Structure formats: structure tokens, C-alpha cells
């Protein structure tokens, strides 16, 4: 049976046991279930998944959409991609489910693992409020199957002294993981989060993660994600961010490896004075396919959004960028900037890029630009003419092109880790 049908059958949903769910959670579950039965998974050429035939890819890899069981995480896997000198609170997930043994965090960090039977007030208020199941099949799928929700709450004026790192450990079983995270905050809170997916080379799996972030007034939150997975990995993740007045949210994404990776980033600017910064860098080779769909919704006046996505694509890798900017009629004095620049290093590499601006307000500054090209030959010659060898010169230019995307990452150890990975990928050892 094809997956899209499989995901719609009564049999499929029977495997769940929603009986224990509290009322609010049960309602959200049922909405997701209905959305899934109604819409199924994205069909071929469906607009939002036009260049990323995700359903076909999952079918071909014979992925089961049933949630994967926990597995024995080897010591070597836990040591993989550890960021040197990073002092962080660690939240570990085993095939999408919270793993207490591998997690270690300060007692002061307010972490709740919600199984759905009981709900705190803030969980009840925010869970499922931003990621709507009828918007995207994978939101629905995650909402149906995420067993537990890791909820982190930042109290008023709480400033996290350490970043929080989510380490998602994945097994090799062609099954699906559904990690689900909710981050909520009160006024003036500050904190930084990092996400990594850890898998052995050659592991095949599907990870369908969903993270909702609620930024209260005057909060400063950052979310970082590094994608360096097995070449067989299939991922669809959604980051839903809801920003109140004068809050600042910044996201940084570095995609290095994976089979087919789809990143959905949706930000709602719901109060004046908000600022959203979206940064993405994809350095791809081999057969990797990375699709970044972002949207920012300016619902109130005097908000800024800055988006910078850049890609370097080699071999037969493929990149997709779709950037939506909505500026509502009331959202006057909006500044919205979007930039997507790509360098193709091989004739077989492709990029599909599409800016999508819908502006109803008239007193706004919005701009967008996308470029796709080869390395600047004139700059290359200039460096060579000074005695810098072609390989070094090329690496120098590519690193310069890429590095500004992550230049503002404020966690030194993470930024260094990113730079090392960028250098390694671009051969920048001059």
C-alpha cells in the first residue's frame, strides 16, 4: 500500500492509544487525524512540495510511518559530532522519544516531558497553537504520532546561562521518528537552542520533527540547527515561531549532508517592534537534496525581518529555496529583506529558488534578491595573480561567500564548529 494511503487508513490510527489523552490534547490529535485522512501526504507536483517529491522518496526507501522503537545507542554514536568546548544543557532523543539517560541539564532548567495525560496551563495554551495540522501533512503526522512532548519554559526575565542542545539519535531501521518540542517564554527571557541529528553513516530513517517556539514580549531567543546526517537520511522538520511585541528571534541553519532534507521555518510577527532573523547555509555534494521553505508573516507594524540563505552546490546535489513574506495591511513601517545566493560548482547541480512576497501595506521597505552563478572568475584570477594557488583561491572565495551567514552566531564554540565544517566541506585548508 502506498504511504499516502497507509497514512489515511483506520488501521494506521488504531495503533495509537489516544484514550489517555487530556481533552485539549485529544482535540488537537483528532484535528490532525482528520487533516491526515482528508489530505494524505503531499502528492507529486503539489505546489508546496513541487521540487521535493517527499512521498515518492519515502515510498522508494520503503519507510514505515509507524513510530520507531527506542534502540541501543552505542557509545560511539554519543560521541559523534560533539561540539568541542560547548558547555550546554543536553536533551537527548532516542528515535524521536525523550531519553532520560543521555540527557543532562541543570536543575534550574524548566523541562517537562508531557505524555499528554495531564497538562500544565502554559502547555495547554501553546501546544498546537502555532503548528496547525491543516497547513502541512507533516505537521499533522507529527501531531498524531509524537508520543511525548519536551516542553521547556523560560520564566520572566530568565536568562539561560547555557545553551540547550537537542541531540536526536537515529537508528537504521527505515522507520519514522517524531520528536516534538515546545519552547515557551515569558517577558524578557533569553536563551539559545541548538539542534543536531546524530546517525551512523549508512543509516536509513525518516525523521519528522516539529518544534514550536513562543517568544513573549521583549524576549531574545536563538535557534541553531546543524544537519550533518547519513547520506540516506530523509527529514521533514518544521520550526514554528510566534513572536510577540519587541521580541527578537534568530535562526541559523547549516545543512551539510543528508539524503532528502526539507526544512520548514514559519515565523509570525504578532506584535510591533519584533525582529526575525533567518539565516541558512547549505553546502551540498553527492546526491544531497535540501529544500528550505521559509515564511514570515508581518501582522503588526514596525517589525523587521532579515533573511539570508546561501548555497554552494557540487556534484549532483539539489537545493530548493522558497521564501514567503507576508505584510498585512495594518503592518505599516515594515522592513523585510530577503536574499538567496547560490553558487553551482558542477553542471549537474541544481537550485530552484523562488521569492514570494505578498504585501498589502503601502508604507513598507521590502526587498528580495536571488542570484545563481559560478565562482567569480575575476576574483579567482586576482588571487592567483598574487601567487595563491587555484585550489586555495577557490576555497578562500567560497568560504568568504559562505561564512557571513553564520558570522553572527554568538556561541563561540558552535560558530567554530560550523566554521570548521564549512572549511572541511569547501576544502579551505590554505
Amino acid at each position, binding site marked *: 500500500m502506498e504511504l499516502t494511503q497507509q497514512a489515511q487508513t483506520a488501521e494506521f490510527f488504531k495503533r495509537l492509544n489516544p484514550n489517555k489523552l487530556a481533552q485539549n490534547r485529544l482535540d488537537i490529535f483528532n484535528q490532525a487525524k482528520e487533516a491526515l485522512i482528508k489530505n494524505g501526504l503531499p502528492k507529486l507536483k503539489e505546489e508546496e512540495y513541487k521540487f521535493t517529491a517527499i512521498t515518492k522518496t519515502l515510498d522508494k526507501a520503503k519507510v514505515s510511518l509507524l513510530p520507531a522503537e527506542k534502540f541501543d545507542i552505542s557509545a560511539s554514536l554519543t560521541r559523534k559530532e560533539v561540539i568541542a568546548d560547548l558547555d550546554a544543557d543536553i536533551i537527548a532523543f532516542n528515535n524521536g522519544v525523550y531519553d532520560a539517560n543521555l540527557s543532562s541539564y541543570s536543575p534550574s532548567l524548566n523541562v517537562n516531558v508531557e505524555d499528554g495525560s495531564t497538562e500544565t496551563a502554559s502547555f495547554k495554551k501553546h501546544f498546537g497553537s502555532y503548528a496547525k495540522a491543516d497547513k502541512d501533512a507533516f505537521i499533522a503526522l507529527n501531531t498524531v504520532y509524537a508520543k511525548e512532548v519536551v516542553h521547556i519554559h523560560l520564566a520572566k526575565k530568565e536568562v539561560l546561562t547555557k545553551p540547550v542542545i537537542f541531540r536526536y539519535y537515529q537508528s537504521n531501521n527505515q522507520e519514522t521518528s517524531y520528536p516534538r518540542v515546545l519552547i515557551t517564554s515569558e517577558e524578557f527571557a533569553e536563551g539559545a537552542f541548538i539542534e543536531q541529528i546524530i546517525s551512523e553513516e549508512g543509516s536509513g530513517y525518516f525523521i519528522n520533527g516539529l518544534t514550536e517556539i513562543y517568544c513573549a514580549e521583549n524576549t531574545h531567543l536563538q535557534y541553531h540547527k546543524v544537519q550533518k546526517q547519513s547520506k540516506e537520511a530523509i527529514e521533514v522538520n518544521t520550526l514554528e515561531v510566534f513572536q510577540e511585541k519587541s521580541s527578537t528571534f534568530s535562526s541559523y541553519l547549516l545543512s551539510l549532508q543528508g539524503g532528502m532534507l526539507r526544512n520548514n521555518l514559519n515565523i509570525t510577527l504578532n506584535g510591533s517592534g519584533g525582529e526575525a532573523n533567518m539565516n541558512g547555509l547549505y553546502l551540498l555534494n553527492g546526491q544531497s537534496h535540501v529544500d528550505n521553505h521559509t515564511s514570515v508573516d508581518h501582522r503588526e507594524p514596525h517589525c523587521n525581518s532579515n533573511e539570508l540563505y546561501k548555497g554552494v552546490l557540487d556534484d549532483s546535489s539539489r537545493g530548493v529555496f522558497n521564501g514567503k513574506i507576508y505584510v498585512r495591511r495594518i503592518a505599516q513601517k515594515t522592513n523585510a529583506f530577503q536574499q538567496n545566493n547560490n553558487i553551482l560548482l558542477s553542471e549537474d547541480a541544481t537550485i530552484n529558488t523562488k521569492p514570494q512576497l505578498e504585501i498589502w501595506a503601502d508604507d513598507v521597505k521590502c526587498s528580495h534578491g536571488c542570484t545563481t552563478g559560478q565562482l*567569480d*572568475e*575575476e*576574483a579567482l*584570477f*586576482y*588571487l*592567483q*595573480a*598574487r*601567487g*595563491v*594557488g*587555484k585550489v*586555495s*583561491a577557490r576555497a*578562500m*572565495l567560497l*568560504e*568568504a*561567500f559562505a*561564512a*557571513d551567514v553564520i558570522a553572527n552566531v554568538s556561541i563561540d564554540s558552535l560558530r567554530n564548529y560550523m566554521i570548521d565544517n564549512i572549511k572541511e566541506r569547501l576544502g579551505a585548508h*590554505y
Partner: protein
Amino acid sequence: MLSIKNLHANIEGTEILRGINLEVKPGEVHAIMGPNGSGKSTLASVLAGREEYEVSEGEVSFLGKDLLDLSPEDRAREGIFLAFQYPVEIPGVSSTNFLKTAVNQVREYRGQEPLDAVSFLSLMKSKMGLVEIDQKLLSRSLNEGFSGGEKKRNEIFQMAMLEPKLAILDETDSGLDIDALRIVANGVNKLKSADNATIVVTHYQRLLDYIVPDYVHVLYKGRIVKSGTKELALELEEKGYDWIKEEVDGATV
């Protein structure tokens, strides 16, 4: 040092150099002048190894080596330096890191030990005064947001750092006011020695008031049609290029 024989070069099938002959010896300064489109900058580019140009005939030897066989970086490492007419702005590449890489790759090629950070910085400091370049400029991205004068000064600064045997200055005077011109020319003059040579490519005589040439060659339609001493430059300044054009075009009719 440099010997060019019957050099022909074209870009996408259009022949621009049609048989250049030129001998440059250590210690000499040669000026290459000529009207727009005569092939002056092409000659400079071909010598530096720009790939868009195809050499169809002739030979160039530099210190006994076949220059045309070498990659642009190896030409630089052998001691050729091209000061660009339009230095390229390269955002994200720091001037200092770039120069350190360049200096050390050149040193490696010549079998010398690489400079460590300390000795590199002291070398930089000693050369900075030569072209009155501000250290602040060097902490920025390469040429990014530099004024025309700053770019040209940076070219001569790089030249001072790399200590070439043959410097080719391609229209270094273009876009410079008189003060900047003086500073740039002083830098070039201070770097001059009995062992190195300079080729100054220029449209105007102005620069040659400061960098005094031993020989002046007039390039027209891809050939050197007249050679002389610095007085030739003055004559060109006074009379323009028309009389040379007439002489050449008349002779071919």
C-alpha cells in the same frame, strides 16, 4: 629578464596582439603607451596569465622559463606582479589573511620557510609606510569599499610585500588624483632596484613625470610601432597619437 617574441593573442577569435616584440632587462623601466584599444591592457593580462586570452603565436620567456607554460599563480611565484587597472573587491576575504597566504605560498614555491604570524606582521608594518596605507584598511575585506586611490595604493602595497622581479602596472594612474598619483609613484620608485624591472602601461604621460622610463614604446593595433626614450612620451603628450596612427596606417596603404 623578459623576452617577448612575435606574440599574437586573441580573445574569442578577435586578434588583439599581432606580433609584439619586447626585451626587458633588470633595472629597466619600460613604458607602454598607446591610444585606447591598442592592446596595452591585453599585453599586461597575457603576461599575467589571464585565461580569456588565447596566445596563438609567439613566445615569452621570463628568467629563462617559458612563461606561457605557467599558471597565473606560478608566474606570480616566479616574480611577475600585475598591478590591476581595476583591483577586484572581494568581500569576506580579509586583506591580511589573503596576503599572508600569498606571501607564504610564494615563499614555499621558492623553497623558503613560511613566515610566522609575528614576522609576517612586522614585514607588513615595514612595507605599509611605503605607500602610506592605513592599517585599518588592511583589517577590512580585500578592497571592499576602498576608494579608487586606496585600491591602487593597496596594489603597490601588495607589490612591496611580494617583492616581484618584474612589476607590470596596468593603467595604475587611472582614477587617481595628483596626490594619490604621487604616493603611488613614490612607492614604485622606492621598490626599484638594479635587479628588478618595471613595465608601466599608461595612456597619459602624467605618470611618467613620476616614474621615469628608460624606454617608451607605442602600441597601436596590437604591435609596437615606435620605441624611444622618455622624450617620446613628451612628444605624444604634446601631439597626441594621431601622427603615429597616420604614420602606421599610411605606410600600410
